[in-house]
């Protein structure tokens, strides 16, 4: 379906003036888009992939500046006047964004926002525009579109808002739709629905799609052609099939190999049970208070039983709001809960903070956010040795320092880094620091709460490998909480699938991935690891 070239980017450079001087985010790249095709621009964070398209649409932040040329059917969008530009933006080229929750104006109804670009670009009357808006909502399969026209964005879910965004972008039958990580902020099952919708709409309407993403799985299933970007440059381009089959550039090869691989063997059958929860329940009170009536009870974790053996990794899988993180914290007694929790032969069900304190060194936790979980005003050395102050108060500061050096080496960081502050490190390095903080206490059980979710794929893989190595070296047991099935599969030997606080299905990893029984698990698996294409390329 290769048509004429409708958009070509020539020697595009994007610079930002910052306090640290001028930063060049895009360094003279060339790319083009043909009518009706799907082009993916792939890269990790900081590759300049989003800024390329922002520059093309003249949407750069006020301290940004673009040079070069972005030609759309003979017009250079970079030099076009405002009113000329606005005849192209939203009419011929439109764009959807990563953040569906904030990309719609919260103060206007969906109908109002949908009708605005229609009336602007096509000069339709109010009634005609309304009919058109209704048609668009039906097109993107929003149930009860008539009522939704009068809804405000805050009354809709993230997936629905992204559908509205798509409807707005397609309102004027554009030539090109630029989709900037349109599914990254959504749960996997919703992701699959949105991608299916996009593919279907493309078949129906025939526009070209420029797909900006870090997710190679999506690219493989969605794109005709691919540009791989790193540090503001295009390092490789080509047809999707060829590029995946035979990558040329080292970086592309590395990206393709970055999918976490390997499987974990289950522990010996007679391995002792370390941590056990029976009928664990966590309830949250929502609202309520003086004059506001009784609070609503939300059961975040609903009678869940779990057994963690020595050297075992249990993966807890679920979408946002499934209660998986809450379960992890409840098992460590960081949240009040009902039911029985045992650690070894101790009953933790009634343990209070003081009772738990000596046990904390054996039960550790690593958080998702490598930025928020390290105190910004402590040095790395202080951060990782804080636990030693509590659990081995007899250590001299020299001994603590030695332990810090040892722990940093173990997680693959240079010991010299211990006098620096967290903000000097990248996300992956920070996560290593957080792991070192847990490992320095030589724990038996570590709850890993989405430890890789905020990281780039290539970094994820390193962290996964580090965690596996630490497990083997120290006979650790992990509770691995994640929504990312590829990572869970590489880490765990047993999987629990959660939804709305309940266990949907559980079993050994290969069984769950190979032969899921429950419908929900099947959708989850299909969304995450299905390799069939969303669309047929020409």
């Amino acid at each position, binding site marked *: 379906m290769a048509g004429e070239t409708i958009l070509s980017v020539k020697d595009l450079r994007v610079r930002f003036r910052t306090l640290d001087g001028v930063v060049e985010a895009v360094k003279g790249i060339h790319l083009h888009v043909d009518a009706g095709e799907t082009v993916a621009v792939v890269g990790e964070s900081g590759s300049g992939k989003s800024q390329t398209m922002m520059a093309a*649409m*003249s*949407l750069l*932040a*006020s301290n940004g500046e673009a040079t070069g040329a972005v030609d759309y059917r003979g017009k250079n969008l970079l030099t076009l006047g*405002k*009113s000329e*530009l*606005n*005849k*192209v*933006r*939203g*009419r011929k080229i*439109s*764009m959807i*964004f990563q*953040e569906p929750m*904030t*990309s*719609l*104006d*919260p*103060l*206007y*109804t969906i109908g109002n926002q949908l009708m*605005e*670009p229609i009336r*602007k*670009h096509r000069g339709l009357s109010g009634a005609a525009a309304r009919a058109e808006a209704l048609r668009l909502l039906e097109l993107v399969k929003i149930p009860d579109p008539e009522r939704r026209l009068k809804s*405000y964005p*805050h009354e809709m879910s993230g997936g629905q808002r992204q559908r509205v*965004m798509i409807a*707005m*972008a397609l309102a004027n039958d554009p030539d090109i739709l630029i989709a900037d990580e349109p599914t990254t902020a959504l749960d996997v099952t919703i992701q699959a629905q949105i991608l299916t919708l996009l593919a279907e709409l493309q078949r129906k309407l025939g526009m070209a799609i420029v797909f900006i993403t870090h997710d190679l799985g999506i690219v493989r299933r969605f794109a005709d052609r691919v540009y791989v970007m790193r540090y503001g440059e295009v390092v490789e381009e080509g047809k999707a099939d060829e590029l995946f089959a035979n990558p040329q550039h080292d970086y592309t090869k590395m990206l393709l190999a970055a999918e976490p691989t390997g499987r974990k063997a289950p522990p010996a059958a007679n391995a002792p049970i370390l941590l056990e929860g029976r009928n664990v329940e966590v309830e949250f009170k929502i609202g309520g208070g003086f004059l506001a009536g009784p609070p609503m009870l939300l059961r975040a974790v609903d009678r869940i039983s779990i057994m963690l053996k020595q050297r075992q990794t249990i993966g807890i899988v679920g979408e946002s709001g499934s209660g998986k993180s809450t379960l992890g914290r409840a098992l460590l007694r960081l949240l009040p809960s009902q039911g029985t929790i045992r650690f070894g032969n101790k009953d933790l069900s009634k343990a209070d903070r003081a009772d738990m304190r000596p046990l904390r060194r054996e039960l550790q936790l690593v958080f998702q956010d490598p930025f928020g979980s390290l105190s910004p005003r402590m040095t790395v050395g202080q951060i990782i040795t804080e636990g030693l102050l509590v659990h081995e108060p007899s250590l001299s500061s020299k001994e603590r320092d030695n332990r810090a050096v040892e722990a940093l080496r173990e997680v693959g960081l240079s010991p010299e880094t211990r006098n620096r502050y967290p903000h000097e490190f990248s996300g992956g390095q920070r996560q290593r620091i957080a792991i070192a903080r847990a490992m320095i206490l030589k724990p038996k059980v570590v709850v890993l709460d989405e430890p890789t979710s905020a990281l780039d794929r290539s970094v994820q893989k390193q962290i996964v490998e580090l965690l596996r190595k630490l497990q083997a070296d120290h006979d650790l047991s992990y509770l691995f909480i994640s929504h990312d099935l590829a990572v869970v599969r590489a880490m765990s030997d047993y999987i629990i699938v959660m939804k709305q606080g309940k266990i949907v299905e559980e079993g050994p990893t290969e069984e769950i991935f190979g032969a899921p029984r429950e419908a929900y698990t099947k959708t989850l698996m299909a969304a995450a690891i299905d390799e069939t294409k969303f669309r047929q390329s020409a």
Partner: protein
Amino acid sequence: MFLYVFRRLLTAIPTMFVIVTLAFFLIRVAPGGPFNQERGLSPEIKANLEAQFGLNDPIWLQYVNYLKNLLHGNFGPSYNLPDFTVTELFANGLPISVQLGLSALVLALAVGTVLGIVAALNQNKLGDYSVIALATAGSTIPTFVIAPVIQLLFGLTWKLLPIGGWGDGAWINKIGPILTLSLPQIAIVARLMRGSMIESLRSNHIRTARALGLSDWSVVVKHALRGAVLPIVSYAGPAAAALLTGSIIVETIFAIPGIGRYFVDAALNRDYTLVMGTVVVIALFTIAFNLIVDILYAFFDPRVRYD
């Protein structure tokens, strides 16, 4: 919505009650009384006066009597301005204070909002810096410096305005006081507006509107401005209550017969009824404007619903 307003009005009653009670007993606890000042009143006259105003009754009885009178809209007589009742004093002074305060508020909102928008749209350019400079000056220089400087420049040096006085409400007499009242407010409003407008312009839905090719007018006015106005609305409530109940500084310096001066004089002279009257009036204004703000807020922001 009506239910909400009704409920808010109901909750205002206990609030008023607490404020009145607190103020009543606080002022009574303070040493001294309305007739013990350096007036040279003979003890008999003083005793007479105190008996006449019921000041010898037990305090709880005075309190109950005061509440009773208040419920009938009667603020009582002023002890230190014996020819007037408190109600009369307010009837004369309040319209003047309200007039000045309202003009200053409207001026501040109009000018401040426009300046804030101009600054936000020209961020880090000359226009922005001038507005920031003005706003910093306006919010740093205290009123009691602005007022005499205005008198000095416009009244004495250039002889454009009268130095002070009310002049029976001649407009030329109002310019100085209104300017003095509004300058700091303009500064605050401009600052608030600039900040919220910049944040609003940075938000994701503005990027969406731009990407859809909407005109600058629609982007700025329809989408950015409406969201950015919300902090101004919340600010305007308490500001209005404060402005409309008079400013002691402005009324003293410009010799304006409003109600702003009463409070300090009355408190110093232990003119109990006048102090109480002022507290009640200020509290009423505050409660009323907070309610208005909440209603306006719901009008501007569909996410806020009262039911």
